[in-house]
């Protein structure tokens, strides 16, 4: 069974993306270290690229984004190992058609790839547990992973601090990038904020 962990940079960006667009659905991808996937089939997620908050169920921009991100990953020894999605309705955590489609597509390249369905109710500064359910693709179906604790306590604390500081206002997703190409989806500034000591 694949080991799944998210480092602070990956986790915080997911939470910030969901927080930035409370009235919309959001989605994005998680990048894992290629070497770890090959050696031990474990997914060590070290970064996240927030993708969209507009029209989540449509294909072309998703394909354009994945093409660019794959090119980026090759130069950094990373692979697209995960997809996260927050549905627009507050109480809706369903692993819907678009999440399944992307999940399947990713698992064509990386069999261990997983889907994170965000629980909107847990996106707030006082949250003490990870804000999603993890799904794995096995036997042509998606099953909820029984792995708990994909992140350390310090990571959740850091995410809370960033939410309080409204750091999500500075987060850039692929939709922002398409609106203005100078918006950098690598989120260098957010990365620096995250790595600053508490």
């Amino acid at each position, binding site marked *: 069974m694949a080991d799944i962990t998210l480092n602070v940079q990956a986790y915080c960006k997911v939470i910030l993306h969901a927080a930035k667009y409370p009235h919309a659905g959001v989605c994005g991808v998680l990048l894992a270290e290629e070497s770890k996937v090959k050696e031990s089939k474990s997914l060590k997620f070290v970064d996240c690229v927030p993708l969209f908050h507009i029209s989540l169920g449509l294909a072309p*921009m998703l394909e354009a984004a994945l093409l660019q991100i794959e090119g980026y990953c090759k130069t950094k020894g990373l692979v697209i190992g995960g997809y996260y999605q927050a549905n627009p309705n507050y109480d809706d955590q369903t692993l819907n058609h678009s999440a399944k489609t992307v999940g399947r597509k990713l698992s064509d390249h990386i069999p261990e790839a997983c889907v994170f369905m965000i629980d909107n109710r847990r996106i707030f500064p006082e949250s003490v547990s990870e804000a999603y359910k993890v799904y794995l693709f096995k036997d042509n179906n998606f099953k909820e992973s029984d792995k708990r604790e994909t992140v350390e306590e310090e990571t959740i604390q850091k995410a809370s601090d960033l939410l309080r500081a409204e750091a999500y206002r500075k987060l850039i997703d692929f939709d922002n990038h*398409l609106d203005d190409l100078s918006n950098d989806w690598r989120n260098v500034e957010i990365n620096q904020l995250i790595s600053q000591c508490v």
Partner: protein
Amino acid sequence: MATHITFDEARTILKKMRDEQVRDGDMVVKLWEGFLIHHSHKLADELWMVYEQVCIAALDCRRLDLAEECIEALQYKFPDSMRVKRLEGLFYEADGRYNEADKLYTEIIEKDNTNMIARKRQVAILKAQGKMAEAIQKLNEYLKKFMTDYESWMELCDLYLCEFDYSNAAFCMEEVIMSNPHNHLFHQKYAEIRYTMGGAENMELARSYFAQAVKLNPNNTRALNGVLLAATNLATAYSKGAKEKQINARYASWAEEQLTVKYKTQATDEQRKETKVLESLRKLLELSQNVGGS
């Protein structure tokens, strides 16, 4: 807020947000409580629009206390207003009291059969409760009466997209385009839906509508990406013959050129170098060009 701004600056920001229909409840509430509330008399007639704006923003932030204050102020000034009644309805909705909200909207419609907003809020209530099929049905009924309301066609399109019913979503966008033929964003969205539906015919439609979007607005990066992807698909997977392949290879090449120029002028050197974006675009283009003489 860390920065201190003047009353006039806050007022201007709020006006800009109203004009551009920006949805940022947090910001509006902070501006109101931080910089405007104690000088509200200076707003003169603008005060009522600001109260409306702050009310809706407060509901977005679950500040029901603030929303209630705004509604009371507006009710005092405009006792019989339907526009204020609608805010009351929104208040009930935000508090999860959907039945009371629905009752209020029904009352509005009984008094005024042509009231569009109350009818649309009833659709919104169904959507908030996750009753998508009912919301779609209700909105369809509404559009039979008010078929020129293109914003509602847009909303219906989005409802169909939530249900992944792409062909009905495409139909809705067709209605929107008919009433707004010069809006590049609508052509682009229609193209995206057709692309998602797949198949040669849809891919050709997608390419045409992406191209039309670029023609209407050469800065539409999404549409340029769309032309490149659709043309590449048509030149490879859906190719009909050598001539078709050649035409699509040229479309793809043109789109890649436009995107390259954009990235060179707008993105920084470091961005391009690190993300390797131009190489990725080139790699995609090569797929459409390697069609040989077959």
